[in-house]
């Protein structure tokens, strides 16, 4: 185990542009700026929550991290020394078990024509993680750990409910004994009671196997519950990053403030002071100039549309990308 490294994953200036092709010969006419200049790191055994609106690039970060879609530029370093994009073929496949992903849709993420035991155990056998003699016992143990029953091994995915399917997906990831799991909105397709079960399962497994999660979600309550650190994304940029307690107590970026104001409070007597954002998220193919958020920001000034904000360290590991907090930006604080 390379547990010597404190940061399981380090991301530096990650960019991912998708080309827009048009015409008969697929000429590239532009790029979708899905992820731009994102940097963060996740400590071993912790969970980082990644929140943002639909289409802000959360899932792309997850997939680019695992090299499931090749990145455009930047660095992704696992365990301090492994650059995934430099691995090819067999060595890449051999590293795969260390980093796993759990998908949002538990229905499309299981092959309908394989029994569950086979789905969970296929990659275990592929990588020879356990001896053949212990294989059945190992799969049974993993299934039990994920809240599945031994006798369900021979069943097919169509016989399971959404929550059970998500358990199967988790079991598939856990069976490979990974260090790091990208949870790509793992509970958003499930109903609320099942969401809680899955969240608790993920937390239990984290303790049991010393896992590190990147928890992608647009559900702030869930992120608040599970995360140790939280990153907020807007249109491909990470606008704010801090510890959970810090960011929920003291959101700095106007977007974060607007986002957190929408968290429902299960108490009817509380008067909510919601910040309503106007308009919809701009096209990532043609992002606004300067600060990408300026088109919808309440505190927008002339400088916001002219230059992109720097990422400012506000201390305590709290970073924010906004001109308001940059004394050199020319933003006039009232």
């Amino acid at each position, binding site marked *: 185990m390379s547990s010597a490294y404190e940061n399981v994953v380090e991301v530096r200036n990650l960019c991912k542009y998708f080309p827009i092709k048009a015409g008969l010969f697929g000429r590239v006419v532009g790029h979708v700026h899905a992820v731009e200049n994102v940097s963060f790191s996740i400590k071993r055994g912790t969970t980082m929550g990644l929140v943002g609106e639909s289409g802000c690039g959360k899932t792309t970060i997850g997939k680019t991290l695992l090299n499931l879609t090749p990145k455009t530029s930047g660095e992704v370093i696992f365990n301090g020394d492994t650059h995934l994009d430099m691995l090819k073929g067999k060595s890449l496949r051999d590293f795969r078990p260390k980093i796993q992903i759990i*998908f949002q849709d538990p229905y*499309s993420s299981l092959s309908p024509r394989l029994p569950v035991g086979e789905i969970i155990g296929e990659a275990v056998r*592929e990588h020879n993680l356990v001896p053949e003699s212990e294989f059945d016992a190992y799969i049974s143990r993993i299934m039990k750990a994920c809240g599945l*029953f031994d006798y369900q091994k021979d069943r097919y995915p169509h016989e399971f409910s959404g929550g059970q399917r998500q358990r199967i997906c988790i079991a598939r990831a856990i069976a490979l004994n990974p260090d790091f799991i990208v949870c790509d909105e793992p509970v958003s397709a499930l109903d609320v009671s099942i969401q809680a079960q899955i969240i608790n399962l993920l937390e239990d497994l984290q303790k049991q196997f010393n896992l590190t999660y990147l928890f992608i979600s647009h559900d702030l309550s869930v992120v608040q519950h599970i995360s140790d650190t939280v990153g907020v994304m807007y249109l491909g940029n990470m606008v704010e990053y801090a510890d959970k307690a810090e960011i929920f107590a003291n959101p700095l970026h106007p977007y974060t403030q607007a986002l957190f104001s929408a968290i429902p409070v299960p108490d009817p007597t509380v008067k909510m002071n919601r910040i309503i954002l106007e308009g919809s998220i701009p096209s990532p193919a043609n992002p606004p100039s300067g600060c990408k958020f300026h088109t919808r920001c309440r505190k927008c000034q002339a400088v916001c549309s002219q230059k992109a904000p720097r990422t400012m360290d506000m201390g305590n590991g709290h970073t924010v990308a906004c001109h308001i907090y940059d004394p050199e930006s020319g933003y006039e604080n009232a």
Partner: protein
Amino acid sequence: MSENNNINNNNEQLALDDGRRVKVLSPGMMVFKRFIRNKLAIVGIIILAFMFAFSFLGGLISPYRQDQVFYKTDSANKEFASAVVNTEYRFLTEDGSPLSTLVRANFSRLVKDAGDGDISFDADGAAWTVQRLGEGFYSIGTTKDLATVTLLGKVCDVKALDGVELSDAVKDAALQTAKAGGGSFEIDGQTYMLTKGKAKTYNLGTVGEVAIASLLSYDAHDSADTGVISTYAFRRAAELALRSGETSFEADGIKYTLEAEEDSALIFRDGEENPLASVSRIIVNPVTSGVFLSVDYKAAVSEAIADKQTAFDYVNADGVTERHTIRMRGNNYIIYTEQQTYLIDMYAAPSWAHPLGTDDHGMDVLTRLMYGGRISLLVGFVVMLLENLIGIIIGGISGYFGGWVDTLLMRFVDLFNSIPYYPIMIIAGAIMDALEVPPYTRIFLLMAIMGIMGWTGVARVVRGQILSLREQDFMVATEATGIRVSRRIFRHLVPNVMPLLIVQATMGLGNIILTEATLSFLGLGIKYPLASWGSIINAASNIYVMTNFWYIWIPAGLLIVLTVLGFNFVGDGLRDAFDPKMKR
């Protein structure tokens, strides 16, 4: 299932909501259960089972071969012989040498107008005399030069030709006659003739019969007697006896008797029962070569014609009485008779031996349907497999790798799709005809061409399916878990494409069988003596067959319709069974 059995054996009490109460079914089993619940699909399966049994077992059971031709015997009133009343004179010379054409022509020309009188003409440098000895019987005589008689003033001389001895009496008579200006004289029963030659010379010659001409023809009853009745003496004596109405004559020292009728006669050797020869003005010839007409038959025909009968009975050599009818055609009489002939049993109506009759080649239709079914089904399956093989490979590569490979292969598919199908098939058929490709080779070539022309649909479907599957999360998951490419393709992609392909292939089979039938119907596909259902229906392209012999083409059409229907029912059933939206 084994899990359930264990539980029952242990008599363990399960809670009502225990998951172990649910019976586990693999996707394959579920498809099967759904399929057998579909009544239409079962009907399709039964139809197809019947078709396969009919085609592949039927050929073994059928007592006939597929190219066995059946024959029948039938009687037909056919032309058997022709007869004509002879108007051409037949000549027989004394020494057997043929008479010159010029003489015969002169004779034939002059004899028509001669009536009873004698005729004389010059031909071949000799004088000819024709003497009428009876109705249609002439004696042809000519002079034979013996000497030259010269009368020059007082000099008279008879100069005999080389090798001729003349008696003095003859010489004297010749001189006398010459002085009288020529003519004939007779000494010792021999007629001499003096004809004027050059200047004052005369030619002395004898007049003698050299040939006879007659309208009668002679047929020996026994072919050994042909020589006898062909002699000059016999003929002359017989003809004379016939003209004079005598009942006997003698030739070469043998006595013959004669039974004459109006235009014909029978000649017997004296004292014998069986006739030697028959004589008639009527000449009877067989219509077809190689048939020998007996003299008895010829006599019977002559008699019937002479009696102006239109039909007569004749007992042939086998003792069977045949009815012969006589009809006039121009100057000829044509004799018809009912004859037994060996015929190909074409278009036989259904019977126990041939339940669906026979076709235009005299082959058993039911047997050909069985063997034709083999070829139709075989072509269908082989072409389907070929199409799917090519289609899966090209569509799979295109869908899995995507990008420029996909673009290139799909443009290739477009190219193939824009090749006109039937013109290509017609050209291929014409080429195979021109090369005289053997029937079995032709089937394989046909399969290959149909397969090569038909894979594009499969390729498109496979590509589309794989393109959509490739983006599914479970395929991303296989990449994320580091499973190697071959396993991803064969364990994850292929099993998920299979259901669609099976449905496609089953539905496509019907279409392939229809296409093969169409090609065979147009004469481009399966060729005689092999059969396919399409080539059997080809018989209906003849309006006569179509309207009169339903049993040849209707069953083949029904078999095609039923088979295609069967495949479509099964295909529909499979599609419904594979459809995940259908609950079990």
